[in-house]
């Protein structure tokens, strides 16, 4: 017993004398190993397997920056670049930066406009110790969900030909606010003509009527990566202390009021979808064996959409009711100088 504590003391005093700092393993991810990255770039393991990258890790800061940038664009699409590195089958996004580009949904390779900006930014970033390279791009789909449009698919295929490894991230700031959780997706396209072996239906998403065709035509040309997030020890501490002041904002947010525009739009969309499905239902023809179960009819899809909207609205009302109960149902009885709670 005594010997172990002695060696413990000895180790600690050695550490103190040599100011050895423990970098917890959580923060190891922030270290950029240039040699390792160059080796990976030379080996190019993704060339042989179109499904090589399976998941993606995004840093807390990168997520926050993307959300803020997407939000600042309002109803316009914004775009930016991702900086990071590769680790086995995982892509890691450390940082992001915004690009001064407009109209990303109208032309392929809108990034070309910002090449000068990109190179200048990455150059100056290297000078302050940010050594990672570009690993992907992100853009926003305000209000219409996280998926790749036809133009996005072409852009991404181009990127995957010339700038591998590259990933496409799509973020929807409007749905983020309406649903109360971050609406984000990370995608990689398959090479032209490649047929994915085992096509599992991806999670259903509400897509507005005017975009549904675009979605349907291209949805089999890409797959989505599993997203996880990471943060440093200092981030964790700061976020904890942030909560000490931020809880007020959580209580005081009223999503019914912030989202009413989006909600109205959704209701219009649902009503149009229902009208369309009505015509489909009345034309339903009996056929001997029904086609594969995966093709859902329009009514089911419209139902899912209306469920989603209803749930969001109910959540908003829950928040309002909580506030009402907390702050409105207490009375001040001046004669007895007491606060009396009402049921």
């Amino acid at each position, binding site marked *: 017993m005594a010997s172990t504590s002695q060696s413990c003391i000895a180790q600690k005093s050695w550490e103190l004398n040599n100011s050895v700092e423990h970098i917890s393993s959580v923060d190891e991810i922030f270290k*950029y190993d240039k040699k390792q990255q160059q080796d990976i770039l030379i080996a190019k393991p993704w060339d042989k397997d179109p499904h090589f990258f399976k998941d993606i890790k995004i840093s807390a800061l990168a997520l926050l920056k993307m959300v803020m940038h997407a939000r600042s664009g309002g109803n316009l699409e914004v775009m930016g670049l991702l900086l990071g590195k590769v680790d086995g089958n995982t892509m890691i996004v450390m940082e992001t*930066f915004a690009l001064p580009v407009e109209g990303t949904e109208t032309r392929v390779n809108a990034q070309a406009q910002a090449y000068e900006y990109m190179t200048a930014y990455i150059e*100056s970033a290297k000078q302050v110790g940010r050594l990672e390279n570009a690993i992907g791009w992100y853009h926003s789909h305000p209000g219409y969900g996280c998926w790749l449009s036809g133009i996005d698919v072409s852009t991404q295929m181009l990127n995957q030909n010339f700038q591998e490894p590259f990933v496409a991230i799509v973020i929807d700031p409007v749905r983020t606010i309406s649903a109360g959780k971050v609406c984000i997706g990370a995608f990689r396209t398959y090479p032209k003509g490649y047929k994915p072996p085992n096509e599992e239906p991806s999670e259903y998403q509400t897509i507005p009527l005017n975009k549904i065709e675009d979605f349907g035509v291209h949805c089999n040309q890409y797959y989505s990566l599993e997203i996880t997030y990471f943060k440093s020890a200092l981030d964790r501490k700061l976020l904890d202390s942030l909560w*000490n002041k931020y809880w007020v904002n959580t209580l005081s947010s009223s999503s019914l009021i912030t989202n009413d525009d989006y909600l109205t739009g959704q209701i219009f969309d649902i009503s149009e979808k229902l009208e369309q499905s009505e015509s489909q239902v009345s034309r339903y023809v*009996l056929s001997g064996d029904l086609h594969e179960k995966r093709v859902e*009819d329009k009514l089911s899809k419209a*139902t899912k959409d209306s469920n989603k909207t209803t749930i969001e609205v109910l959540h908003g009302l829950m928040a309002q009711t909580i506030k009402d109960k907390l702050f409105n149902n207490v009375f001040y009885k001046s004669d007895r100088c007491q606060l009396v709670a009402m049921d």
Partner: protein
Amino acid sequence: MASEFMEIDDASKKFMAPVGVPSVTVSLHPLVIMNISEHWTRVRAQEGKAKQVVGALIGKQTGRKLEIMNSFELLLIKIDNDMIIDKAYYTAKEEQFKQVFCDMDFLGWYTTGVDTPNESDIKNHKQACTINESPILLKLNPYAGHTDLPITLYESVTDLVNGEPTMLFVEVQYTLATEEAERIGVDHVARMVSNETGESSLVAEHLTAQYNAIKMLHTRVKMILEYVKAVQNKELPKNHEILRELYSLTHRLPVMQSPKFNAEFYTQCNDVALITYLGSITKCCNNMNQFVNKFNILHDRQGLGRKVRGLFY
């Protein structure tokens, strides 16, 4: 002799002005805090030990209100034994950020450190003054404990000390900016591990957030209650300012009681109820439709040879 001791005592506070009235109100976005934290962590991970980092703060200023919205790193270069901010690097970065954030300006700079501002901070601050007349200094302490945000903001004033005009710092109070998307992002990132179980209910997630906030409210109220009880039992001296604030706080409850508010609130409830009703009807219609389809299929199977389609249509 005594004056010497005084000087040593005040050495750390040499650059702090006596408490005065700050001239600006500052609102800080959590994104900036995360930026600085990442910058510090990254430098530490790469160099192997912690170093002081420096960067610029940008945002919007309207009159006396400052909103610090973003930040970026700055380069420190060694000139005659001093670490000075590299001006050329700053100008290059300024050009860049003006392209993307055209309505944001340079508002100040940040650094990491443990105490109140010191000698080198003054030098860097003077440099920042060449870009903006009255920049803000943000100091983050990466080694602080868990309780409060270890961030302090200062602005500079020029005072006469010993007959010479010197630059002193005054602490500035700040609030946290509240943008809905940011709040959701911060919330998500702060609690990200809790939803790995797979079977996550949407309602549970939403209510957990509310529950945590209410828990905080409860602890705060409890603390106030204990304070008042202690004062009543004469355990603590009466602080009239606090008691006055408490009085005004309790008098503000209930927050909204006018009949107009009640009418609006009930209208909102009715709207939500209507949407819920429509949603349930849609769901019902869908279920009915599915049922009828399946029923038709079953019956058709039985009458396969007879082609009596029209009957079930």
